C-alpha cells in the first residue's frame, strides 16, 4: 500500500504565536519550529497500518521553507520511508486554497491508496486544506477520525460528531483526517534518527508541479488580511488561598449569582 501523510512545520504551539505587523503573516523567524504535534498522530496511524500491511510505503509530503526539512526528518525518524518538500519563495503568503492545490499536485505523483492529514494544523488551524486536497484529487473524505481501520480495500473510521460518533467507510483511495485521540505517537528511537538522515527527501519547486509563480503565494491568495488589533481580554478577579473555607466561599459566590 502507498500512504501519503501531509505534515507541516509550525512554530512551537505552546509558545506565543505572533503576527508580524507589517507583513501580517505568522512570525516564523526567531521562534522554535517543530513538526506539528498534530501530524505525529497521522504519522503514527500510517506506521500502524504499515506494520499490519507489509510492503507499505509511507511518504511525507510538506509545503514550506527549506528549513522545514528538520521537521520532516523527525517524521522520517518516527519511521516514514521518504519525503517530498515543496519549497519555493513564490509560496510565501499562500492561503488554504493554494496550499491544497499545491499539495494535491505533489500527492498525485505518489499515486497513494491513502492520504492522511491532521484535522487542523496548530498554527493556521483553518482545517480547510485536507478537504481541498480531497476535492482536487476526487477522493472521498473521511474526517475527524478517532479510530481508523483498513480492511478489504476499505477505510473505516469512527468520526467524532457533536453528539457522539459515526461509523463511516469508503473504498480506497481515500483521504482521512485524524484527531488527537486516535493513538499515542511513538518517540523516534536513536536508530530511527540515524536512519532518517539517509532517507530520501526530495525538494521540489512549484514549476516542477506545473504552477507558475504568480498562481501561488500571496499573488494567488483569495484571502487577504487587512489589519489586526489585540483582542479585548478579561480582567482578573479575586484570588483566595484555600484555608478550609474555600467551599463555603465558592458557595457564597454562587448564591450571590443566584445559581443556588
Amino acid at each position, binding site marked *: 500500500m502507498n500512504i501519503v501523510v501531509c505534515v507541516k512545520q509550525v512554530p512551537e504551539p505552546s509558545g506565543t*504565536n505572533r503576527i508580524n505587523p507589517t507583513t501580517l503573516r505568522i512570525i516564523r523567524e526567531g521562534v522554535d519550529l517543530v513538526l506539528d504535534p498534530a501530524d505525529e498522530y497521522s504519522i503514527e496511524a500510517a506506521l500502524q497500518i504499515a506494520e499490519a500491511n507489509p510492503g507499505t510505503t509511507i511518504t511525507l509530503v510538506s509545503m514550506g521553507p527549506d528549513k522545514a526539512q528538520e521537521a520532516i526528518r523527525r517524521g522520517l525518524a518516527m519511521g516514514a520511508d521518504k519525503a517530498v518538500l515543496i519549497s519555493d519563495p513564490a509560496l510565501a503568503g499562500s492561503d488554504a486554497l493554494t496550499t491544497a492545490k499545491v499539495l494535491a499536485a505533489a500527492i498525485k505523483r505518489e499515486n497513494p491508496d491513502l492520504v492522511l492529514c491532521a484535522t487542523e494544523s496548530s498554527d493556521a488551524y483553518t482545517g480547510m486544506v485536507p478537504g481541498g486536497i480531497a476535492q482536487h484529487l476526487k477522493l472521498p473524505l473521511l474526517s475527524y477520525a478517532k479510530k481508523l481501520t483498513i480492511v478489504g480495500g476499505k477505510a473505516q473510521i469512527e468520526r467524532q460528531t457533536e453528539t457522539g460518533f459515526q461509523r463511516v467507510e469508503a473504498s480506497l483511495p481515500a483521504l482521512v483526517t485524524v484527531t488527537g485521540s486516535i493513538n499515542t505517537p511513538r518517540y523516534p528511537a536513536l536508530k530511527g534518527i540515524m536512519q532518517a538522515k539517509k532517507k530520501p527527501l526530495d525538494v521540489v519547486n512549484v514549476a516542477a508541479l506545473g504552477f507558475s509563480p504568480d498562481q501561488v503565494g500571496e499573488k494567488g491568495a483569495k484571502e487577504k488580511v487587512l489589519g489586526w488589533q489585540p483582542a479585548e481580554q478579561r480582567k482578573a478577579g479575586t484570588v483566595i488561598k484555600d484555608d478550609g473555607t474555600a467551599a463555603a466561599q465558592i458557595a457564597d459566590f454562587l448564591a450571590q449569582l443566584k445559581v443556588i
Partner: protein
Amino acid sequence: MTKVWVFAQINAGQVQRVSLELLTKARQLGDVTAVALGPGAGEQAGILAQHGASRVLVHEDQAYADCLSEPAADTLGALIEKEAPDLLLIGSTYDGRDIAARLNARLDCGVITDGAEFALEGGDLKVQVPWYSATTVVTVTLSGPTKLVLVKPKSFAAEPLENAPAPQIEQISLAIADTARRAVVVENVVQKSEGPKLEEAAVIVSGGRGLKQPENFSLLNDLAGQVNGAVGATRAVVDAGWVPYGMQVGQTGKTVKPNVYIACGISGAIQHTVGMKGAKYIVAINTDPDAPIFKFADLGVVGDVLKIVPALTEEIKRRKG
C-alpha cells in the same frame, strides 16, 4: 440587493441552531436564501423563514444524510455556479467545515474560517476573525465573486421575526452523482449524557488534568447535579481518553457561554480559554497560584480540587436543606 445565502444544516430532520443564528445575522446584510438539504428539509422551511429566509431551496435526497460532504458540496457548488450569491454562510460544525473545504477548492473562492463579525458594503466583505486563540483580532477579506464564510455556533443569537412573510419555496432538481456517494455513514452513535447539554447549560463544571484520574470526574458530575449544570473537559483529558470528545471545550472543541464556568484543575491554556471566556462568570480551582487561569477568573481558589469540589457539593446540599 445583496444576495446572502445560508446553508441550513439539517440533522435528523431538524435544522441546526447555528443555521438559525446565521439567518438572523444574514437578514441584516441582504436578501436571504436558505439552502436546506436532506430528508425532512422541506418541513423546516417555516422556521427558516421565521429567522429571515425569504427564499428556501429544498432537496430532500437521503444521500445528504447517508454520505459525508460530497452530495452537499456538489449541490451547493452547482447552485452557486448558477446564481452567484455574494455571500455564503456556513455554520462551523464538522459537516459544515468539510463542505466548506470542498466548496473552496471547487469554486476557487477562498474561505474565511471562524468569522466573528462581518460587514458587506458594495460587494466588499470585511470579516473580523479571532486569531491565535482570540488574543488578536484580524480583519480579513476575500476577493472572489462569492464569499464563503464559516461561523462558529453561538457567535450570534437566533431571533425569530414577529411577522415573517411566507417564503418562496423551490425544489432543487439536481441529481446526486453515484460518485458523490462514497463516504458512507454506516451508523450514528449518540453518546447521551445526563442533565443539560454543554452548549445550553447555564452552569458548567469543567475538569482538566488536575483531577489526576478519570474516576474523579464523578466528583464533577455530583457537583453539576446539584446546580443543574453540564460537565466539560480540557483536551488533555479527552486525548487521554478519560472522557468523550463531546465534552471538550476550546479551540478544537466546543465554544460555550454559560452564566458560570467552574474550572477544576485546568491550567488555562489559551486553546482552552478561547472556548469558555465568553462565560459571564468564571470560578477556578487550581493548586498552582501562577496558573494562567487565575489571570481572568472572577473567583480564583488556590487549592486542591479533590478536596474542594466534594466539599462544595456537600455545602450546596446543606444550604438547599
